[in-house]
């Protein structure tokens, strides 16, 4: 495990543990949809061999589900002096640094499950679609506070495109 990406001297802020439930529920929805879709060949052809397909899907999705808590713990962000640092991913790790001045807008979205748990997702939008900084699973108050903080920081470091 020494080959994992890591940044020295970063004190990551983590997202709410309640987000695990959101992730589990959305993964379950995807699992059901995939199981139905992958069962169609077996159901239509009545060939037993085709049942391997949904079986494989089931195994993979159970593994994905098992790793949800660790995946949620792998999400982190930190407000540094001049940029926002964001990390995500367990198997596919991703680190992004965005200067505050690059902010175009901040989006706060809440899905049905998130809303029930009092969570929301914060999306930091830059002029580059590939920046893709989306911090999920923040408590509503935290998300709004973070948004105001980021907007204020961006205002002091206004930059062009």
């Amino acid at each position, binding site marked *: 495990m020494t080959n994992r990406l890591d940044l020295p001297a970063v004190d990551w802020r983590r997202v709410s543990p309640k987000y695990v439930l959101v992730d589990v529920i959305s993964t379950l929805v995807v699992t059901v949809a995939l199981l139905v879709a992958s069962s169609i060949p077996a159901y239509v052809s009545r060939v037993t061999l085709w049942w391997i397909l949904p079986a494989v899907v089931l195994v993979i999705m159970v593994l994905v589900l098992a790793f949800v808590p660790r995946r949620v713990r792998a999400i982190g962000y930190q407000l540094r002096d001049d940029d926002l640092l964001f990390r995500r991913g367990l198997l596919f790790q991703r680190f992004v640094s965005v200067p505050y001045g*690059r902010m175009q807008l901040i989006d706060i979205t809440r899905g049905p499950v998130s809303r029930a748990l009092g969570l929301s997702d914060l999306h930091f939008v*830059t002029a580059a679609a590939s920046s893709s900084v989306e911090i999920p699973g923040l408590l509503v108050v935290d998300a709004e506070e973070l948004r105001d903080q980021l907007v204020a920081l961006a205002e002091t470091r206004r930059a062009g495109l």
Partner: protein
Amino acid sequence: MTDGEATNGPSEGDPIKDLLPPGAVLATRLADGEWHRLHPATPLLRGGIVFIAIAGVFVSEARQQLIDLFFGAPGGHEDGDPFGFLTRDGRLPLALLGIAAVLILIVVIFYLSWRVHTFRITDEVVEVRSGLIRRSLRKGRLDRIQGINIVRPFFARLFGAARLEIDVAGHDANVRLDYLSSANADGLRRDILRLASGTKHSEEAHTPPDTRGFVGQRVAEFIAPELDPSFAPPESVVRVNIGRLIGSILLHDTTFTLLVLIVLAAIASATFGVIEIVIYFLVPFVLALGSFLFRRFTKSVRYSIASTPDGVRVGFGLLTLSNETLPPGRIHSIQVRQPILWRLPGWWEIRVNRASKSNAKGADAQRNTTILPVGNLDDVLRVLALLLPGTSLESIDVLRRGIVGTGPAGGFSNSPRRAIVVRPFAFRRNGFAEIPGVVLLRGGGIWRHLTMVPEARAQSVGVTQGPLYRALDLARVHVHTVNGPVRAELGGLDRDVAVGFFGSVSLEVVSAVSTDATHRWRADGSTA
């Protein structure tokens, strides 16, 4: 306001004034913050072509009837013929009256729509308002200008008119001034760029009054070189000659692939003798190839790229002329790349990412993103020096190594040897370097490419790692820029090196962003 051209005066000037003589209308006067009208032929050029076409069809249909009418041939008209119907029983005067009424109505609508279509250029914004019934107002902020394009379609050139397209950051956010008198367009662009640059110095307009007649001017414009020699110092101009252009198109990857497919299809037909089916498949290929070649050719013919005080000027076109000026700091990433067959003659092309998306149709896509359609290494380095102003000679040397070099020479940090698993041909080339203010990502063993991102334009920096890379202790770095054909990323780097790149480049981007002032590129008061 000075001579009744502004719309808020009740007395109206002569509409022809803007057309004749163009030299008398000084370019600077159009950018004085007042509302101005467009070229009087605008409605005709924007929508009137259809009207002329209909009139043409009408006349050709009616020709026989008209001849009969004026030369008194006796009627023997079939009943189904509308013209026969009209000329019988004395309906003709009524019909002519109707046609005249329609014509007058169209002229009145044209005149009114021309009257209400006005534009204004102030220190901050450029505004266009138009529409008789549905009024519309379009505003573009000068400090967000990504480039100004002057297009002279063939038909508009006959009238001495040109279209000015101001690219503002954003999807389909262009402000179009169509049409202006051709002689004014260049001067107006200079004025807009001067206002946008933030300089307070005003320059004298130096358009000499043109004393030739209307026809003389049109002829002079048609035979004039595409790039006026007084615009740019000749040593800064890079041109593409036509032989190289044709060669580059024939050796391009797309051509090559399609030719291979055609040959394969021909062989298949010879072997299996199923000519019909093969032809059925071949025709679309040949059509696609032809249209691709034609498009690429027309978009690159008479190509020139030059440095002007307000940015890089890119011009091309044979019948429809187009030239665009990109102010400094509007290019978000640059890629030099080489399609595989271009290796033989040693040619390269340069593509860029820009913040504006032109609403022009598919065929124009190349214009926006290809800065140099084909050039040898020398041309490429000269164009890069234009696109990255302030590059020193040492930096040029690093760029040269980035394009053709391998190994660590020139300050490149390369992939480790174990990256051969993921970069079997390119691991010697695969690496990054920095010149002041610019990140260089080099890669590709067979399809060689070099990607450059000015740090002041980078939106964010990233580093990623998947399971395969983890097993090899490698990582991938990304520099995110606005969307476009160029993706600035480099895989197969040592993990520690990649993390180091992430740390240092993210710091440099922050400092470059905070000191960047290109949105008002001449605000220090210097005039170039």
